[in-house]
């Protein structure tokens, strides 16, 4: 297996080298696809000068705010909806009506209310993460084993204790799935919202670079995004393993079964 | 000239970490056309590996399989293998008729042709009326019948069966044993049969080849000459049946004790 991974890496490096050579030889218009070396050079300049970290920070600020708000609002809502039929029926129609709305389409709506400020992006992210988080939490809550619940009731636990000690942990795998799925959605929407209406942030940076024909810079921005996407994913996994080690083991057991 | 010949076949598996497992030590045998031959041996003795090698699905480490004088290097066109795990072998997206038709399609029949043949085979294996059902709707025994019908639709000269009734209950097994015998009597296909059920082997075969523990070789060859057609009650109650069965059982026990 290691041999095949090596193959893949070598092939990848090979492609990069081909890119460099082709671009240097001017076989492709360098204004459109500059040599890899130049892109990397610009990238490192921008990182060291603080430009890229600055833009990333702006984007991440909004992303985090929207993401956390969505989690804080929709996880409890999902649990309530999962536990109580009446709550579910109350919100059901709203959810079904709002679900089909493609998230980017909310951007102009948000712009109407919030202009081009951070709040606009935060709202868009909040809206987009809603469904994965809500629906997964709902599902997870609903699927909590009856036996588990009855056991808790036998011990005379209060409702809040049941929710906190039984339901939350039992539904947490699904909740985590919802949170995990929302991560790339968050990133995508922060980029889109910045491209459509913003004055800073990594999305804006990439588009702006293209508009000013600073092509190497544009690619550097894209590279930043790829790294960001990867880093967020890794960060999430690390956090997950730290906060829920019992679940990691449980999942491994389930997979083996 | 024998239809099929296994010459000095051996197979060694290399595990990760460098360990090697010799599945087949050295096996040689000759199979005549129309024979019903069973391979019996202790678990893990490489019976499946042997059958897969004969079927051309696995390449041997040494030795060769010769069919009609030609060496096998890849699945030969006149031979088909029925797998033990019918669940994973049947095509879930095709009905019973569709699965059996597959055998015909593989033979080269065009789509519409041969529907009658497919239906008659389905009848032959006792599944008349179930043509439009899907595999998941059928019991284990019925599913294996579909797999057998599919294999026969291919009109193979040699039918290989890898513990086909291993995961079925005892009564179903007896039913299917008779079904296979009926098919064999009618079609006179050469059958190579693997089973761990000694009595099943004695009941079905013309000849039994006993395999040793890993690395496997053939330790004994027993001709079985009970009258045909065989009968679950009559054949099995003959004293000689139990004698042969005990003899084989003892041999295998001794082999296992040796390892």
């Amino acid at each position, binding site marked *: 297996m290691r041999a*095949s*991974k090596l*193959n*893949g890496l070598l*092939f*990848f490096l090979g492609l990069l080298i081909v890119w460099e050579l082709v671009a240097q030889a001017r076989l492709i218009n360098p204004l*459109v696809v500059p040599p890899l070396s130049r892109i990397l050079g610009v990238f490192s300049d921008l990182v060291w000068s603080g430009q890229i970290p600055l833009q990333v920070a702006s984007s991440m600020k909004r992303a985090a705010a929207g993401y956390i708000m969505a989690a804080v609002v929709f996880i409890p809502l999902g649990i309530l909806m999962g536990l109580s039929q009446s709550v579910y029926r109350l919100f059901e*129609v*709203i959810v079904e009506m709002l679900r*089909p*709305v*493609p998230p*980017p*389409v*909310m*951007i*102009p*709506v948000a*712009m*109407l209310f919030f202009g081009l400020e951070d709040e606009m992006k935060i709202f868009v992210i909040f809206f987009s993460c809603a469904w994965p988080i809500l629906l997964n939490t709902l599902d997870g809550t609903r699927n909590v084993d009856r036996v588990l619940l009855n056991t808790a009731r036998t011990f005379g636990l209060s409702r809040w204790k049941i929710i906190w000690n039984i339901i939350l942990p039992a539904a947490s795998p699904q909740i985590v799935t919802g949170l995990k799925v929302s991560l*790339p959605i968050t*990133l*995508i929407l922060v980029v*889109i919202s910045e*491209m*459509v209406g913003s004055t800073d942030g990594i*999305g804006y940076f*990439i*588009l702006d670079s*293209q508009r000013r024909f600073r092509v190497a810079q*544009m690619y550097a921005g*894209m590279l930043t*995004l*790829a790294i*960001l*996407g*990867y880093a*967020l*994913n890794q960060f999430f996994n690390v956090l997950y393993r730290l906060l829920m080690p019992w679940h990691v083991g449980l999942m491994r057991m389930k997979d083996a079964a | 000239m024998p239809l099929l010949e296994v010459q000095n076949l051996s197979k060694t598996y290399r595990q990760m970490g460098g360990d090697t497992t010799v599945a087949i030590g050295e096996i040689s045998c000759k199979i005549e056309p129309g024979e019903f031959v069973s391979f019996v041996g202790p678990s893990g003795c490489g019976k499946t590996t042997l059958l*897969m090698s004969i*079927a051309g*699905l696995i390449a041997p480490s040494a030795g060769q399989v010769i069919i009609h004088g030609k060496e096998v290097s890849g*699945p*030969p*066109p006149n*031979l*088909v*293998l029925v*797998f033990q795990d019918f669940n*994973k*072998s049947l*095509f*879930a*997206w*095709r009905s019973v008729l569709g699965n059996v038709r*597959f055998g015909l399609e*593989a033979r080269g029949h065009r789509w519409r042709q041969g529907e009658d043949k497919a239906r008659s085979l389905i009848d032959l294996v006792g599944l008349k009326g179930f043509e439009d059902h*899907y595999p*998941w709707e059928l019991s284990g025994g019925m599913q294996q019948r579909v797999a057998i019908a599919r294999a026969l639709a*291919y009109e193979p000269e040699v039918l290989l069966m890898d513990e086909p009734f291993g995961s079925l209950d005892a009564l179903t097994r007896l039913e299917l044993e008779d079904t296979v015998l009926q098919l064999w009597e009618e079609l006179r296909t050469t059958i190579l049969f693997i089973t761990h059920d000694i009595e099943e082997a004695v009941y079905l075969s013309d000849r039994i080849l006993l395999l040793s523990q890993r690395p496997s070789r053939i330790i004994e060859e027993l001709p079985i000459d009970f009258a045909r057609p065989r009968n679950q009650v009559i054949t099995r109650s003959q004293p000689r049946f139990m004698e042969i069965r005990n003899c084989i059982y003892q041999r295998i026990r001794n082999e296992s004790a040796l390892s």
Partner: protein
Amino acid sequence: MLFALLLLMWEFGSRLSPALQSYLPPVSRIFRSLAELVISGQLVSHLMITLSRFLQGYLLAASIAVILGIVLGYFRLAHSLFEAVIEFLRPMPSVAIIPVAVLLLGIGDAMIVAVTVYASVWPVLINTMDGVRHLERTLIDTGRTFALNRRKILWLVVLPAAAPYIVTGLRISLSIALILVTTAEMIAGSRGLGFFILDQERSMNSSNMYAGVILVSALGYVLNRLFVLGEGWAMQWRRGMLAQESV
């Protein structure tokens, strides 16, 4: 129930407060605008443009991704070669490709279809690849024992067996394609529903804007429904199986 209540609150709250009206016009007015725009044909032409771009992008992506997915899933060599490339490109949000596309293809249909194709390929590719890679060994061996050549095995065994996974990928791509088309239209388009919605926002025509939002959501909903119907028809053999599993 709550929904109806909220709608009523919206309607009256908006009518009563002129300040609110520019952000949140009364529901009735939104529907009136919707009707007017549809009848005048204006919105319909934007809808058709968006739909056409969507179909081109989605269908092209589906074809490419299924073929590529099968190849990469079935041939171990191909998979190991491309594994690193795929793992590197995956985390990058597909929308980042829009500026590059604008650079290469300018503003217009070609660019929009291109970015849609790029984004829509991923879910189908990954799902197809995974589906093919995880096919039962016995199933493939069954195809082989019938002495079928590789092409026949791919067509008669691999493809149908991997179909459920492929369909999952296609379903995900459906939403992604619509999202990309509307996004590209917003960022760099001059026609289409995405552009329309943004344009109306810029001109402060909020009821037109909401009308556009409703229409594009309806489009997404209808496409999804159609897909589910098609899936049910094509995967009839699974319906019974799934029903049994849930028992």
